[in-house]
């Protein structure tokens, strides 16, 4: 394995560079997948049948909390990578932990929101609006859930092995994934919630 010391650890081998590039290609596919679900939602969002409309069911409070939690977690994972590049293990682990806790908080609020909808009688089967909403939000929430498991596993590995080209590479790729989830959320916040409440 040839290690190039002029670049950050996560880019230091040919394989690492390819892995990062490959992950960007994957994110490109994710952009397209989320676009199709946004297209479905934009087509169906005012097909509400006998069920509630977006304006009746959305509440801005929990949405603002979710937005704040996810924006902050995207900031802290950025800081984690920044500390990792300076070789600060403790700070990296700390920022990772904060990121995952914020992600967990986000997920908690989102589950609370879903439970509220279902209690109000708006389930996946209620109307086309709720189906497309739950599919779009649910896929994003599933990504966050996967991220929590992935990030937790990475923390264990980093604790055991320290910063190696391998763990640094994985952490950097995880940070790309986490920032991407934040980008998707920005669009959900603007064009699902705010537009629905307008």
């Amino acid at each position, binding site marked *: 394995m040839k290690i190039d010391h002029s670049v950050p650890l996560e*880019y230091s081998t040919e394989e690492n*560079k390819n892995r*990062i*590039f490959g992950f*960007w*290609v994957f*994110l*490109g*596919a994710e*952009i*397209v997948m*989320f*676009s*199709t679900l*946004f*297209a*479905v939602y*934009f*087509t169906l969002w005012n097909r509400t049948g006998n069920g509630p409309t977006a304006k009746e069911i959305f509440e*801005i409070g929990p949405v*603002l909390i979710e*937005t*704040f939690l996810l*924006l*902050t977690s*995207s*900031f802290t*994972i*950025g*800081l984690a990578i*920044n*500390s990792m590049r*300076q070789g*600060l293990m403790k*700070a990296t682990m700390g920022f990772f932990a904060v990121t995952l806790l914020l992600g967990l908080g986000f997920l908690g609020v989102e589950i609370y929101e879903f439970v509220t909808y279902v209690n109000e009688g708006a389930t996946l089967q209620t109307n086309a609006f709720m189906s497309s909403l739950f599919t779009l939000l649910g896929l994003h929430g599933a990504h966050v859930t996967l991220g929590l498991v992935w990030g937790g596993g990475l923390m264990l590995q980093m604790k055991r092995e320290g910063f190696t080209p391998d763990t640094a590479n994985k952490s950097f790729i995880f*940070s*790309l994934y986490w*920032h*991407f989830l*934040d*980008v998707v959320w*920005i*669009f959900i*916040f*603007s*064009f699902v919630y*705010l*537009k629905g*409440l*307008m």
Partner: protein
Amino acid sequence: MKKLFPLQHVMGYVSSLILSVVALTVLFFDMSFGMQMTVLLVCAIIQMSVQLFVFMHIGETGSKTSLYTNIAYALFVGIVTIFGTLFTMIWGYQ
């Protein structure tokens, strides 16, 4: 402190918070629909760029051109999917 919280990241974070608040104003001020959508779209695109360039370091690798091409192509396909769907399913009938 400066080591752990580099200015660029803090600025990126603060600007995404500010942009979210700006987007929120569409609910409280009296604006036309076109104006509201413009505010939302501009805020979302700037926030996306902050994430891409500040946090995800898209510009720092050697394979920069291929990366930009890949993301631009993905965005192109996504935008065509969304607006093509809206055009054929909604706007075409109005």
